[in-house]
């Protein structure tokens, strides 16, 4: 059996890649993919700990996360389509109208 620390390490690496992606990329589609990556890093951590503890709680939580992620992508993609329709660009650097 592989040691749990490798799973956690992989999870951390994936999360970091995802977080960096969110922070540095300008294309919202890529940002979404990065977010998915972060969520899945968290899912990996959940199932790892669940298997280690022999408990099903973590496994069940992962289903919730996947469901929410799917809903989120659906909403997010719809938003992006609407933004593109109105502004003819989806560059996030041009979306700063919330600035104070």
């Amino acid at each position, binding site marked *: 059996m592989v040691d749990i620390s490798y799973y956690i390490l992989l999870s951390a690496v994936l999360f970091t890649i995802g977080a960096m992606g*969110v*922070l540095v990329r300008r294309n919202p589609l890529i940002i979404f993919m990065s977010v998915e990556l972060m969520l899945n890093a968290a899912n990996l951590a959940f199932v790892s700990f669940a298997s280690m503890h022999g408990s099903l709680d973590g496994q069940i939580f992962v289903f919730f996360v996947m469901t929410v992620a799917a809903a989120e992508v659906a909403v997010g993609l719809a938003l992006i389509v609407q933004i593109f329709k109105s502004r003819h660009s989806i560059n996030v650097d041009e*979306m700063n109208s919330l*600035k*104070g």
Partner: protein
Amino acid sequence: METHGFAFLAPWLIFAPLVGLLLNILLGGWFMKQPWGERAIGAIAASASGAAFVVSALLAYTVSAAHGELMTVPFAQWIHIGTLELDWTFRLDSLSTTMMLVVSGVGTLIHIYAIGYMHEDVRFKNDIPRYQRFFVFLNLFIAAMMILVSGDSYMMLFVGWEGVGLCSFLLIGFWYDMDTLGRSSWANSNAAKKAFITNRIGDFGFLIAGFLMFWRLGSFQFDQVFAAAPALAASDHTTIILITLFMLIGVAGKSAQIPLYVWLPDAMAGPTPVSALIHAATMVTAGVYLITRSAPLYTLVPEAQYIVAMTGAVTALFAATIAVGQYDIKKVLAYSTISQLGFMVAAVGMGAYVAGMFHLITHAFFKALLFLSAGSVILGLERGHHHLAHGHGHGDHHEEVFDPGDMRNMGGLRKTMPVTFWLYMIGTLALAGIVPFAGFWSKDEILLDANLHYTGVYWILTIAAFLTAFYMGRQIWMVFFGEARHEAAAHAEESPAVMTVPLMVLAALSVLGGALNLPFEGFHNLTHWLGHTLGEVEAMPLNGVVAGVSTVLALTAIFVSWLLYGRNPLKAGQPDPLKKPLGLAFTGMENKWFVDEGYWFAIVDRYVDIARFLADKIDWEFWHDFVHEKVIAGTYNWLSNSALNEGLDKRVIDAIANGLGKATQWLSGTTRKFQNGFVRSYALSVFLGVVIILGYLLLK
């Protein structure tokens, strides 16, 4: 003490005139709109006074039926504090009922006379609605005077004393917005104020006497005071002297004695019926009544009695000299009143209470007669003047100011006003003390007493009596004899019956009044009557020498006055024939010995100086400029402006408020940079936050 007979009527002495005045207050305005209104008002007032006379007569009858026994009629509780028990109680004895009869009797006649007098006076003064007010005041006076004479304690007497003072003030200032000639001026109201203030000085004396009395004798009630007085006189003589002398100050104020007589001549500004009723017959005699009432106190202190007698005697002589130099018909009578009041005060000072009261009664008759006749003369001249002004059209007569009271404008009136002339003659003979008129008997009794007790007083009074006859003779010759010195006098018209009939009654009383107390065996009626109250006094028989001297002197005086004024009647514009022989002395008499000016210089001016000093220096410069402006307002200004405004508010409070604002501004300016709208930068913040929290948790 139980009450008998008609004693229960006593409160009506006061309520009868009060009802009269209330009727006239409430209905008078409506009456004045009716053609018969004036007569109705006059009739109500006169009947109210007449009712008081009827009550007085019934009370006098009751007292005499009880052989002069003292009766008290409790009416109302007034003040009960600690040992002080003041009740409104009517005191009925021979003295008080005598005063009631004089006041209401003479008062009623004057009310009737005033119906005619005021009818014309309000027309000459061009203010007819004021007719109503006059009778209201006159009734009020009767009520107040009745309170005065019927009171059973010094305080009740004082209530009436102040009440008549008020009425005197109101009536002197009746034509308050003009002078005696009807010109717009404050002269009359100043005369009223002078009377009121001078009387206040007297009242101060009365009050001090009252306080001393209550302090040392423990009561204000007459009988209690008189009962306690002898013991105090034995142990503390000075207090009784002080009480009696302070009371004398009150008497000097009300009865116009030296040094407070100066208000009475000015009081002639009031309408003539007022001069007759208040300032000759009744109110001014209140002082004499007060001393007579206080006889048990005065008899304890001969020193005070001597001072009272001398005050009266000196006043009698002093005022008589002034009367000689006056030209105004009413002013002569005013000084004559002061002089005659001096006789009365001298009499009661000598302990000759009956003589004083006798003279008070006869004087009320003949002086009221003289004043009212003088009023008739004045109105006669006004009528003449009026007649001329209309006869000649509206020409130069309106330019000239005509004084209908100036004897230099009169002359020859016996032809145009015969009734008034004969009435005036009777009054004059009574005042001059010619046998058998009333004044002779009463004045003679005073002189007789003076001759027995104080020779000094006797001689002073005898000279005063001589002058009395002289100035009255002068007046008669100037007013009624010779030729008219003014057209108005030539056209003077006689007064109507409503005025002359009351005068005839008074004239009859002036002739027959002496019968009250003839100095013959069996005729000392007043002596016996008042003896019930004052204790039996020995009735004195006629003294041929005293009576002879005074009669001869009176006749001589009249003869001298004839030599000066009657033989060669005064021409218009001619100076008084006494001016040359008397020189400076006559100037003094003419100008009232400059007493008013002296008082003005010594008291009024000094008072004004003090008032001005207090106003300018103390109040304005010290109090206003320094204390208020500098100290209070200055400190406040400094405090509010420099300390609180500049220092605390601007420096500290503003700094806090501004600092808070600035800090907020800086904080928001700084933090707004984070709010750049880039979702990624927010995400970075979140990421950094998570890193920091995690780092903290890990490194903790």
